[in-house]
Structures are given as structure tokens and as C-alpha cells.
């Protein structure tokens, strides 16, 4: 194991904490790459990074159930309160409340029928509620369907990033070579300087150049 890692672990930092902190720069770079090089649209970088952490706590399956329920409940709640003509903030309050209650429902389903581990941390529930808030805001700002699309892409991106960083291979490599996290920052600079076409744009625009 790397000297730096050993030194940090001996000074009392838990291995899991150290791993998460080392993985965050990596997750940020992966998400940055997906957004600026591939062209995936997601909520802001911070929200997407912490969504990855939420999945780290819930696991993919339970996390997916909850995020899908959020999307469905957001739609149902908005449908029923549409005619009440409420202020935006009170709409969000209602959505957040329903989402919190729906997490109870999904935990119940996951535990009783799917026999999943439902010992999830408080912070991951807060992150999922934050996702619901971002969904509401994006819907009002960019329209109903666009908001749902960006939400879905955020969830998928978070899951993919989670798979990429939370596996035994990355785990070993990152603790063995913690400097990879610094390398990730250099990559951030490189991506931040790129002015090339995003992959999604390439497919969107390729036909016009053919003519």
C-alpha cells in the first residue's frame, strides 16, 4: 500500500472515509467528461456528484426504485395540485413531503418483497430529496418534459459513475495510488480548456455538413 495512504490511515482516518474523499475528484471528472465531452445533460455538477454518493449508500437497485418513484410521484402530485394554483414554494413543499413518504413505501417494498438491505444512511435520503427539488426547479425553468429528461440523465449518469468508482478494482488502485485524484484535477483543467464538439452535438449536426 502507498506510504501516504498508510500514513493517513494510521493518523485515524477511516479507510472508507478516505476512499470516498479520494473518489469524489474522480467522480467529478467522470461527470465533467460525460457533460462536456459526451454532451449528457444533468443537474449541476454538485447535485450529480452527491447523487453518486446516495447510490453508494442505497445500492443501485434500491436507489433506482426510489428515483423512479420520485419521478412518478412528482408527476402525480403536480397533476392533483395543478388546479389549486399554488405558489411555487408550496408546490415544492408538497412534492418533498410526498417524496419523503414515498421513500418509506419503497423501503417497505424493498425489504418485504425484494429482501434488500434497507439500512440506508440519512444523508442519502436527504440527497434523494434534493434530487426531487432539482427536478421541480428544472421543470419550471425548462419545461415539464425537458425537466424529466434531465432528471433521468442525471440518475443514469450517477449510476454509471457509481459503477465506475465503487468496485474492488478502483478501490485497490485508488488506495494504492492516491495521486490519481490529483491527476483527475489536471484532467478537469484539460476538459475545461477544450473547445471541441461534444459527441452528442457531432451526431446532431453531422448531417448538415454532408450536403
Amino acid at each position, binding site marked *: 500500500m502507498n506510504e501516504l495512504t498508510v500514513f493517513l490511515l494510521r493518523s485515524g482516518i477511516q479507510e472508507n472515509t478516505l476512499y470516498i474523499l479520494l473518489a469524489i475528484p474522480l467522480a467529478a471528472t467522470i461527470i465533467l467528461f460525460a457533460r*462536456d465531452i459526451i*454532451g449528457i445533460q444533468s443537474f449541476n455538477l454538485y447535485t450529480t456528484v452527491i447523487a453518486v454518493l446516495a447510490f453508494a449508500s442505497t445500492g443501485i437497485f434500491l436507489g433506482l426504485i426510489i428515483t423512479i418513484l420520485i419521478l412518478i410521484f412528482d408527476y402525480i402530485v403536480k397533476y392533483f395540485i395543478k388546479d389549486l*394554483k*399554488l*405558489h*411555487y*414554494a408550496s408546490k415544492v413543499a408538497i412534492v418533498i413531503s410526498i417524496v419523503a413518504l414515498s421513500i418509506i413505501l419503497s423501503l417497505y417494498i424493498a425489504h418485504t418483497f425484494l429482501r434488500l438491505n434497507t439500512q440506508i444512511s440519512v444523508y442519502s435520503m436527504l440527497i434523494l430529496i434534493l434530487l426531487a427539488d432539482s427536478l421541480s*426547479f428544472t421543470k*419550471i*425553468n*425548462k*419545461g415539464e418534459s*425537458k425537466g424529466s429528461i434531465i432528471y433521468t440523465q442525471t440518475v443514469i449518469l450517477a449510476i454509471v459513475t457509481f459503477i465506475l468508482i465503487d468496485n474492488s478494482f478502483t478501490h485497490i488502485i485508488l488506495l494504492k495510488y492516491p495521486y490519481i485524484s490529483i491527476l483527475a484535477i489536471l484532467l478537469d483543467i484539460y476538459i475545461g*480548456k*477544450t*473547445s*471541441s*464538439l*461534444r459527441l452528442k*452535438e*457531432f451526431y*446532431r*449536426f*453531422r448531417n*448538415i*455538413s454532408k*450536403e
Partner: protein
Amino acid sequence: MIKFLEEYKKISNNILGINARNLSYIDRSSIRVSNSKIRVKKILNDNNIPTPKTISIIKNIEDLDNFNFNNLPTSFVIKPNKGLGGEGIIIIYGKRKKRNENEEDAWIAPNKEILTLTEIKIHILNILNGYYSINKKNDMAIFEERIINSQFLRENLHIKEGLPDIRVVIYKNFPIMAELRIPTIESKGKSNLHSGGILVGIDIASGITTNAIMKDNYIDTHPDTDQRLSGIRIPYWNKILDLSIQSNIAIHSKFSGVDISLDKERGPLVMEVNARPGLAIQIANKSGLKERLESVSKLKVRNAASAIRVSKEIFGGEIEEEVNEITGKIILGRETKVKLNDIPDFYNAKIDTGAYSTSISQDIAEKIGLKDTIDRFNSIGNRFDKNISNIYKIRDNIKKEFPEFNITIVKSGNGMSVRLVVDITINFIDENISIETKATVENREHLKYNLIVGRKDLKNFLIDVTKNT
């Protein structure tokens, strides 16, 4: 893989993407100005650039509480000051009639949607709270006059609701690319692509519309009206280009998209200046922005007029081909080579928009096998008069006596005459198109042309007087 990289490189050199736009072209110094519609409008007005009139600005909740909605004109628009992509804009067409005393005040929005006073107030509160704002911070709401579409737009696009506008992308004070943005029922009167509006590319040189897109797909006609979208000549084109450049100069911007609407009475008005113009304009124009931006990046010109001249020269399409392609109309010169019916000979036809109907010489009529008919028709006595009422009598008499003849009255230089009408097929050789029509038979032995095509048969053609056959 190598093939992919080659294509990627080729398209990257031509098309402007978000990364390149944000990094190399967006003008950080002017972005704070152009984010605020109120500030942009003030600067434009100070520079005598026409904009829609502001009715009132709601800065905070106190303003909203004190605002008297009864003082509003019949139609108006509510906009967030720092809105993005047309979100948060509501167009109001008029006030709803009250059915009884206690009914709440309400207004009519696009698609006949009714908005009550409470709903409008909630919407303004949402604007003030920054839900539509670019930086998600508190914002102001603007009441603005509603632009009444110019006659041109109503006649040529049959727009009933919503306000089309013209966007000109300006870089270093050169017009780079332009598009016409048209609202649809789906877009609720707004003309942004993301709201479901239509974008139509415009040829910089001529101001003629080219290709239309809706949600990135090419379309030919407006989905709500079936109106053809290409081949429309935008009025005030030079004025629009000039206003765009002047607006760009006024807010000291290097790169921007200037939105201009055509008002019924005031003509072109600058609606707003966008620091981050959308990139779909490239699809509607079938052309890349990056290539165009780079081609003017080292150029310098003295004034707007020379900038317009240069842009038209380097970005303008080849008009004839383009008009051909986009309108489905074929360009004819002043004369063109034709064949008639089955006769093997070629004739030079005169294209004459001054004449209403098409006419052929007796000589040709005889060749297509009408010699007998013509001889018999010519044997009828008087077929000419200077007086209108007399010529009708003559016509009616011939009709009564010789019902087998198909005849009509033709005005000529020195009077009116009754002429024989025959069915012919004209085959335009170079244009590879044939039309079936009725032609009058004339004695034009002393004339240069055996055939004149009149405007009745020229509906599907455009005439270019400079075109040589």
C-alpha cells in the same frame, strides 16, 4: 475508427458547439448587460434603436401589491427580466368579459387559455422569486406592449397567434447567420425551438428563407397552417441587418444574437440581445457557424454598411439555385426554347408577364393541325372593334352563329378583338417541364415571336430578366 475521427474533425472545424461557443466566443464583459432585458432596452433606447414600449416594471412585492391591473392596455406581455429561452413569458391577448359582478378579472392567453388575476399575480411572484431567472436569484417582471404582427407576416405566414421574430447572429459587427423563428400552437406563442417553435434559415444576401426545422427535423410547411416556409422574402432585410449591428455596437458586445420583430406600424423592433445564441440555427441554415465566425475574425470594416456588404458577399447563397430548390419554382429568362404538342421544331417563346394569356401565331396553329378551323374562323366577318360594348356584341353574335368555336376577347394595342382559343401543350426544353394550357391564336407574321407565354401560365415560374437562354 479512423473514419469516425476524420469525420469528427471535419465537422468540428465547421460546426460551432457549446464548448467552443462558451470558451471562445461568448463575451464575458457584455454578458451581464445582455442578461438583463431592462438594461439592454435602456441602452438601445439611448441609441435611438426602436424597441417595444415598456408599460411597467415590477421590481418587488410592494410594486406588485400597488400595481393597478385596470390601467393595463387590452393586450400586453409579461416577461422575466433575466429569463432564459423564452420561459416565463406570457402573452395576453385581451381581457375576458365578466359574466357577472363577482367574477374575478381574467385575461386571455394563447390557445384561448384563461388566466385569472390571482394566477397572473402568482406568475409574477414566481418571476420575482427568480424561478425563471438565468442566475436563479431574485428578478424583476416587465409589462411590455404586445407587438401586432406586420401585415407581411400575417399575409405570408398566416400567423394568427404569437410573434415570429428574426434572429441575426452578429460577430465583430458582421452579420454571420440569420433565422426566422415562428411560434406554433405547441409553443404557446413563443418562438424558441425548445418550446416547440419553428426555425427557418435565412439567406444573408437576399433575406429569403431557406430550410425550416422543428425539433431538429426538417419540415416543409407550418404544422398548424400548412403554410410553405421556404422561399419567403423577409421585408426590411437591410434595415434588420443594420439594426442588429447597431444593437451589438450599442451594448459593446462582440458576439450576440439579436432578436427583431416586425410591428404592424413601427416596422422592425429590437426585442432582445442574447449573449448565448442557440446553435440550432446551423441546422436551419445547413451551414456551420464556426467556419463563418473564423472567416470574419481577422476582417475589419469601417461601418455597418460595409459589414453588411461583406457578409452578403461571403455568406450569401447562390440565389438562383436556392430559389429554385426552395420554392419549387423554376427560373425563366425573357425568352426560352420550347416545343409545342408533337411538332419536332423548336421555337423561341417570349416570356411576357405583361400579357395575361398565352398566344400562338397562326403559322404554328396551322402546324398543329388546326388549318381548317383557322381558315373557317378567319372567314367570319368583323372580329375587331375599338369599343368595349361593341366587341361584346360581336363575340355574342359569333358564339350564337358558330357555337363550335372556342373564343375569347383579347385586348391589343389599338383595340379589342375576338380570337380563337386552342388547347396546346408547351414543353419547356431547358427547364424540362411541360404545361397544358389554352392559347389564343394571333396573326403575328410580322412579329418576332411565334409564341408568347402570358402570366396566366407563369404561376409556377420566377422570371429573371438577366437570365440568358
